[in-house]
């Protein structure tokens, strides 16, 4: 299987998962969503193993840069989103603390914890990778 065929099959699997997920969400079926997710993951692993795709250093460098860029964009975005959603409720605007606006505070809290979680994961990964690649600074 060449890379083109691999990408085509991967796109088909992604389409299948997206369709099934949409059906699961519209039918409120947790079991279908879970089954689809697990099936999709298994299919992706199988296709990947069959394809034997060559992963070279440029591809790895690209992935590293893309991951860093994603973090650099996503973490401040959800952090800022959390602040914007929490300011009205924390700022004493009563209208945002009840009724249909109540979910805004909950969503703000979720985003705030999510951004904190991302920062913690990034810091821990950085710490361990720094140690692995000899950045402890101890002179021998």
């Amino acid at each position, binding site marked *: 299987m060449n890379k083109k065929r691999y990408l085509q099959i991967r796109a088909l699997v992604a389409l299948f998962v997206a369709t099934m997920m949409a059906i699961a969400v519209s039918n409120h079926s947790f079991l279908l969503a879970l089954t689809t997710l697990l099936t999709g993951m298994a299919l992706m692993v199988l296709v990947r193993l069959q394809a034997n795709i*060559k992963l*070279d*250093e*440029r*591809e790895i*460098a690209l992935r590293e840069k893309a991951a860093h860029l994603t973090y650099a964009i996503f973490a401040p975005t959800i952090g800022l989103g959390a602040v914007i959603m929490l300011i009205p409720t924390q700022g004493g605007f009563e209208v945002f603390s009840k009724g249909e606006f109540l979910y805004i505070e909950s969503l703000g809290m979720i985003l705030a914890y999510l951004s904190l979680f991302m920062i913690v994961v990034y810091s821990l990964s950085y710490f361990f990778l720094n140690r692995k690649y000899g950045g402890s600074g101890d002179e021998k």
Partner: protein
Amino acid sequence: MKNKIRVFRALHNLTQEQLADRVGVTRQTVNAIESNKYLPSLGLAFKIAKLFNAKIEDIFIDEEGDYEK
């Protein structure tokens, strides 16, 4: 950092695909190196130099300011 991979490849009568297979990378990577869009790792640079039976500095030419990129 400039390089003479294209010249050495022509001298050894190799296509980008063949060179890529010999050094264990994709054709896209060889193309990116040749067009100075990607700097190879030291390991890959050594592999390429060894394949062409040349020194690294004969293939890769250092230019001022390269390390600031």
